[in-house]
Every structure is written in C-alpha cells, then in structure tokens.
C-alpha cells in the first residue's frame, strides 16, 4: 500500500543472496561498511562501485528499488556535499572570490562522502530486500549470542527489534485508515492549507497512539497467556545453516577490503 516505505520489506526473487544465512549477510554488511570507510581514492571507489553493483544485480531485484531506498536521504547527501565542499581547504584552489575559495581537496572529499553514503544505503538495503524480518532477527540473535557471556541478553534486544519492525506496517496501515476516515469527515490532510493541517494532525495522532497502546497491551496479555518467558531456551522452526555459499559471500568482502587497502 505504501510505496515509499521500503524499510523491512523483502522482495522475493529466489536468488543466491536470498538463500544465504542471515548471519553471513549481516557479517558481510559490517565488512562492507569497513570497506567503504577504507576506500579513499578514485580507483578504490571505482572498484567498490563495480563490486556493489555486481552483487546488487545478482539478487535479480531491479536496481531502481535500491535507488529508491536512498531517495529519502537525497537532501542529507546534498547537505553533506556542500558542507564538505565549503569547509575543506586542501589541495589546489579551483575557484575563489575574495576570501572565499573552493579547493580541489574539498571537492574530492565531498564527492567521496556522497558516494560512500549512497553505496552504504543502497547496498545495505540489500539486507532487508533479501531477508525476511524474522530471519534477519534470528541472524542478529546468532551474531549477538557471544554477548550472553557478558551478561547481555540478545533475546531481549532482538525481541525489541522484532516487535518494533513487526508493528511498523500494522500501525502505518491503521494510520492510513484513520486518515481516510477523518478525510471522510472533511479533514483531508492533502487538501488542506498548512495551518489547518497542524490542527488536523491531532485527529490523526490521538487515535493512532491510543490504538498503539491498546495493541501493546493485547500483545503483552497474549504473550503472557502463552507462557512467554524471556531468555527461556527455545527451539526454532527455521534453523540457521552456514553453507559454502556463506563462506564465499563473507570472503568476497574480506577480499574487497584487502584490495581497497592496497589500492
């Protein structure tokens, strides 16, 4: 229903990336972040771009969906570009007016930051596009399990995340219905002038928040009724399985990291 919201939506195409263990995908993403931060020259950026696009294409999800994922952040990227461009005073002067000047180093750094950000968002979208929230959560729990020894509870963290993720679409759908209901009563947020909009927002927020609380209450009751206990040993319907493809996937990122560091 809500086209703009791509968060937490998986797109099933059955590619090899879809079939990977969520843990390897998570590890891969962490390594990818490191690779992005390491690459600081044009050749390494080019390599990174080629690699990222190749992996994205191998998921068989149209590339435009990855780009759509980055779209909401376009103004932030522009902002970062301008700030970097104006503040970094290194390298040759490209252009100057009085005490004000733009430097070659600034332009390069600005371009790098934007490219990094773009790839960071589009590429990590791959994780949510190819992994259902449930599996993602299970993978996260697997990755966090060593922290159990430190007295942290990965169960608690992943439960929180999974409840939050699970209810985003539900609450959005509900908000949409309430918005339509209020529009039917003459409060169309899309047709009203801005000043009126703020007033009408109350008619949306009160019902949405009260129903979110009601849902939370129902969820607590139903979990308790089923005897849910935090950190209880639990068996799983889907088991995580680490296969050869997972090793290959993670190794790809390690090799990328080495290549980028050498370039």
């Amino acid at each position, binding site marked *: 229903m809500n086209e703009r919201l791509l968060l937490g939506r998986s797109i099933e195409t059955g590619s090899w990336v879809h079939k990977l263990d969520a843990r390897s995908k998570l590890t891969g993403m962490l390594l990818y972040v490191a690779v992005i931060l390491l690459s600081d020259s044009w050749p390494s950026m080019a390599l990174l771009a080629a690699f990222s696009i190749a992996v994205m294409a191998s998921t068989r999800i149209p590339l435009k969906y990855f780009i759509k994922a980055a779209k909401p952040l376009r103004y932030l990227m522009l902002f970062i570009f301008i700030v970097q461009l104006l503040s970094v005073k290194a390298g040759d002067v490209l252009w100057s007016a009085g005490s004000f000047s733009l430097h070659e180093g600034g332009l390069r750094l600005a371009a790098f930051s934007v490219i990094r950000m773009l790839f960071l968002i589009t590429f990590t979208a791959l994780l949510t596009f190819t992994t259902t929230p449930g599996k993602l959560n299970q993978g996260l729990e697997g990755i966090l399990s060593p922290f159990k020894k430190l007295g942290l509870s990965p169960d608690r963290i992943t439960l929180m995340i999974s409840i939050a993720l699970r209810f985003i679409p539900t609450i959005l759908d509900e908000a949409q219905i309430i918005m339509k*209901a209020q529009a*039917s*009563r*003459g409060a169309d947020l899309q*047709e009203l002038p801005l000043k009126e909009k703020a007033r009408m927002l109350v008619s949306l927020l009160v019902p949405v928040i009260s129903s979110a609380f009601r849902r939370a209450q129902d969820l607590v009751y139903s979990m308790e009724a089923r005897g849910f206990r935090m950190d209880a040993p639990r068996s799983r319907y889907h088991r995580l399985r680490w296969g050869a493809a997972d090793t290959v996937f993670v190794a790809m990122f390690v090799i990328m990291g080495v290549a980028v560091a050498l370039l």
Partner: protein
Amino acid sequence: MAIQLEQVSYTYADNSLWKQTALHEITLGIPKGSLTGIAGATGSGKSTLLQLFNGILKPTQGTVQVLDVTMRAGEKSPKLLPLRRRVGLVFQFPEQQMFEDTVEKDLCFGPLNFGMSPEEAKERARKAMLEMGLDLGLLTRNPFRLSGGQMRKAAIASVLAMDPEIVVLDEPTATLDPVSRAELISQLERLCREQGRTIIIVTHRMDELLPYADRWILLKDGKIAFQGSGGELAADPDILARCGLGVPHSLRYWRGIAGRFGLAGEKPRLTPESLAELIASLPGAGTSGRPEEEGGCP
C-alpha cells in the same frame, strides 16, 4: 441513480512490484433511497469498492459517478470536499477514529469541517444522536468511556451529523452483541425508509440484512458475481456458494418451506415472525402430522 460505476477497475500500488488489482471492470448502479447490501468473501474487494464512493480512492480505470460528481480515471477530479459531506463513509471499527474528549465535540468535528456554524453543528450532533437511538446525556461523556455498542453508534452518529444523502458502512455490526446488531440494522433501515437516505452496507452476516435490503451486490475476486434483489437471490442461492459465502439460515428455511408447500413464486419471508405467520396461515399446515421433518424452523 445515486451511484453509478462504469467499467471501474482499481489497482493498488500501480507501477510497482506490489501492484495488486482489487477491482476488475465493475459496472453497477445504486438507486436513490435504496438499501443495498454488499457481500463477498474476504479479499473480494468490498472495502476498496466503498472507498470509491466518496472519492477517497480514485478509479484507475473507468468512471465513477456519485450524485452529480463524476470521477474519471486519469482525469483531475473535481473538489471532493462537498461530495464527502453528502456521502458519509463509515469505516470498519469507526470507534477507533474518535479523538475528542467529549462525544459532542467528536460529533461536531465533521459538520465544522464542512463549514457549518458551531450552533448548527451542535444541533446536527443532537439530531444524529437521536437518529442512532442514543441518549442525549451521553453528549458530555468521554467517548472512550462508552460501552462498545454505544461507542460504535456514536461513531456512526459522527458521520450522520454531516447530514449525508448517502451513508456507506463497512461491516457496521462486526464484534457487536446480537441485540446491538439488530438495533443498529433497524436504525439504519429507518434512516433509509423514513428519511429517504441511500444506505449501503457491507456485511459478512447476510442473515441480519436480508429481510431489509432492497438490493444485493455480491463480489468475487474483485468482480461482480450478482446484482439484484433479495428475491432473485432467494431463487438461486447457489450463487452464494460460488462466491464463497454460506447460504443464510433465513434463506434456507424459506427455501425449505417454499419447496414443501409450492410457494416458490411468492415474496420470500425472511424474518422468523413473517415466516411463522405464513406457516400458521397455510391451509393444512398443521395436519401433515410430521411437523418435526421441517425441523429448524425458528
């Protein structure tokens, strides 16, 4: 005709991977002042259809004509605010849309949005309360402190307060107790018969609406499977099974009795009272000596 649809299709999230066509080439007409029931299995497009009636959704194909407003696919639609006052749309669980701290304020929300004066809005609110059979003493109460049935009726009243010519309700009786359900349906029928409003009700329980509805529209997989009177439906109940709906009890009883006594051409009696009356008036009905064979007569 109050509402006329020509070859209307509606597709959610057109141009995306999640594209889903909910309605296929629907053509239907709903006469002014009629009481129409819409039924269909889950996911047959009932709720989508309702949202076309007041322009919340615009057709992706075809033409929707409501009162004197015409919405064509691909064309910029006229200002919809006046239409929304004239077509009251009550969503499922309407009590969830209430947000003010008194029932009166919530009922005035619609009328005020449509530019009525505060006095006029309050007057409309009182009238709507009475139309829904609610006590005026509830006006000063917090809507969140009403009982479930009262809350539902108050929420429906908040739509009636706009004085709409057409009232469209999506499963208004869902989760209500049987007494409240019957009350609500008879109040809605009064709105239609006494005030001449066009009433459209989507329901899962055809039983409760069968005795009152003038017309029925059955949907199956986004297409119209049947359009006509309750009598026609009574003549061919198989259509219900084809739409994934159960045959209502009242219709089954009527079919049984009509078949037994050769009454197929008559107007169906679909309430327990009218059916009992008919049976009592039948010559020799009491003399068959095997009354238990007709079993299940209410």
